[in-house]
């Protein structure tokens, strides 16, 4: 038996023993996904235990180095772990921007001290990280950001305003893009810094969305003191990190359609509409669902293929933009169809009998998928310029 087969067998057995049954149920509510952090309220003992046993092996971050608490697995082993988790429908034990964004950036660009300070806490889900990127006047044109960080000798003094800060009201720390050289060209005067959300001068105000939820906040920064040792990478080289982080964000948002949930739509449609002569009663909806399932399957396979190509060393750059564009557009279509399948019931807003309008709120939430992390139009710009080489004079 090869080492990998042995690893698969042991992993399967370990997951069988350690993954609680309740953590193999599909993710429905926001809280079904554990985000960690000091303010997190576990929905059950199972959720807490599942995080702890996985974090103890470093399997919340399976391919990160073991010396910082990660799993230390190679690509093949990581893939096997993912497959074995999917096999039993195991939930991802921890879902966070620490894992998907700032962690990888720290591992690549951070000082040894920053890695030792932050990586183990990310792996264990002890800190909820939020992202200070967009500003009221700088969304798609992120590099124009104006939040200032003045050099005050042993520290920076930060002033400005961030917007669309995901869950800033629940987060413990922020990784934040700031302007450290106002005189330099816009891409060349940006740095990435980290600070505790409890620092004096940080004020957070949730934004109510069309879904009725407030997953995003405005964050006001008034004379916030940030220690110099919390600068990630080099001063004024923050745009390189920002781009690196955006790539990770795109992959995360693009992969929203992938989860442990059976994403196919037809079982719900059969339950709702019934079959006439073996076919869904609404033939136009039947075709819409089949076309969506085609694109969804194609997207999942493409994510797999691009990972496999990267493993084999044949990867192409800018693939994350293609995956982000395709994945979010497909996910939006999915939720349009979920509403259509349920008819009026899919648009109910309140009431116990209607799951408190979850279909409608989720549908509205997905409208943001193709805006956050760079709009679909920005992704198309990137594909056109970087992959197709269009518009060069």
């Amino acid at each position: 038996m090869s080492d990998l087969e042995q690893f698969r067998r042991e992993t399967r057995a370990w997951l069988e023993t350690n993954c609680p049954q309740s953590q193999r149920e599909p993710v429905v509510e926001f809280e079904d996904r554990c985000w960690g952090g000091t303010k997190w309220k576990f929905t059950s003992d199972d959720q807490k235990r599942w995080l702890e046993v996985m974090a103890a092996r470093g399997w919340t971050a399976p391919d990160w180095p073991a010396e910082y608490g990660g799993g230390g697995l190679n690509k093949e082993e990581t893939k096997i772990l993912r497959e074995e988790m999917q096999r039993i429908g195991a939930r991802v034990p921890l879902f966070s921007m620490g894992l998907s964004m700032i962690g990888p950036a720290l591992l690549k660009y951070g000082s040894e001290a920053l890695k030792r300070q932050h990586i183990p806490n990310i792996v264990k889900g002890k800190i909820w990280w939020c992202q200070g990127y967009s500003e009221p006047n700088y969304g798609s044109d992120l590099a124009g950001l104006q939040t200032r960080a003045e050099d005050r000798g042993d520290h920076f003094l930060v002033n400005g305003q961030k917007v669309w800060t995901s869950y800033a009201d629940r987060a413990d720390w922020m990784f934040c893009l700031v302007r450290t050289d106002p005189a330099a060209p816009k891409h060349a005067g940006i740095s990435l810094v980290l600070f505790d959300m409890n620092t004096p001068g940080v004020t957070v105000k949730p934004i109510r969305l069309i879904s009725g939820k407030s997953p995003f906040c405005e964050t006001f920064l008034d004379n916030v003191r940030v220690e110099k040792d919390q600068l990630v990478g080099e001063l004024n080289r923050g745009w390189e990190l920002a781009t690196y982080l955006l790539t990770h964000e795109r992959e995360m948002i693009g992969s929203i359609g992938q989860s442990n949930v059976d994403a196919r739509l037809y079982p719900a449609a059969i339950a709702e509409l019934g079959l006439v002569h073996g076919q869904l009663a609404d033939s136009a909806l039947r075709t819409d669902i089949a076309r969506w399932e085609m694109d969804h399957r194609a997207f999942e396979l493409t994510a797999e293929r691009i990972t496999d190509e990267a493993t084999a060393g044949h990867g192409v750059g800018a693939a994350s933009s293609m995956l982000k564009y395709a994945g979010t557009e497909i996910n939006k279509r999915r939720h349009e169809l979920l509403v259509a399948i349920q008819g009026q019931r899919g648009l109910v807003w309140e009431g116990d009998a209607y799951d408190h309008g979850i279909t409608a709120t989720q549908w509205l939430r997905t409208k943001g998928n193709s805006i956050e992390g760079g709009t679909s139009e920005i992704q198309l710009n990137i594909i056109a310029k970087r992959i197709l080489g269009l518009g060069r004079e």
Partner: protein
Amino acid sequence: MALVLDEEQRMLKDAAREFLTANAPVAQLRALRDERDPLGYRPETWRAMVELGWSGVLVPEAQGGLDFGHVGMGQISEEAGRTLTASPLFATAVLGVSALVLAGTGAQRAALLPAIVAGELTLALAFDEGPRHDPNVVATRLRKSGSGWVLDGAKAFVPDGHSADCLLVSARIADSAQLALVLVERAAPGVTVERVVMADQRNSANVRFAGVAVASDAVLGGGEDAGAALSRLADIGNAHLAAELLGLAQEVFQRTVDYLNTRKQFGVLIGSYQGLQHRAAHLYSEIELLKSLVLKTLQALDAGSDEVPVLASLAKAKAGEVATLATNEAVQMHGGVGMTDELDIGFFMKRARVAEQLYGDHRYHLQRYASLCGY
């Protein structure tokens, strides 16, 4: 299994591209059309393909083939889609070989496969009976007569039907629900072949069978029901048509991007306009999605997976949609010059539509997919 080609498959793909670009580019199809060539392909090109071993890619080693599988063959199909190469590759080396492998007896395989490998025998699958793919309509009848059989009926739009040495004909056995697949010489008495010149300038034919005598050893599998084999044959055909359409879409897209990067209007490259950039980038994304479905389907065929019917329909449906988009955008983005015969763009559009209609367009396959899933 990883969704990437292995080293040998990559080498075959590179070799196929090199050979086809050098020996059978779009200019060859154009010349065949202009000359109104009665055969519809260049025999010397086919001979060279045979020497490269392509006629035997799907043939088991025992019968002298390479047994290299559908992923390997699919790379050749894809590359032939880039160059729009007309040859017996699809009808003979994909469908003919697969029919014998799936439904033939040991004796039939031993007698016919080596001849195909050697380039001495070409085949054509006579399957559909109307202009739209419908595997449930088989009015062609095979009835018992003495020690053999007699075939009566008609088949429509048979690829290579006018040029192949022999036809593989699907028929219903008289007074039963059973299907059979029989081998009939094109020149046999009672067989009438009428060539149909299609928009893509490839070979198609309407074929009639009037009291055609069929020896009992010409019935594949000795009379076992061929329904399952025919269904799998259509899946194989669609997988390779999807691969061909993938190659076609990539090539016509590359030519379009090249044009956007050279053509100037208002003093600037037209590729600098966002109105065109976004449409091109969207098309790029669609082609990437198609690539994955095609490779997965070819892998499923080699693995004998239960998912073959579902994947073949998804791949063909997506291929039809993407190739339609790619060719429509190619003409539109080339503007007036895209409408001219002088440019090759029109050849891609015409082949895309014929290849999509063969064995079912995207509408057919979306419906079939839904039925296979139980809705």
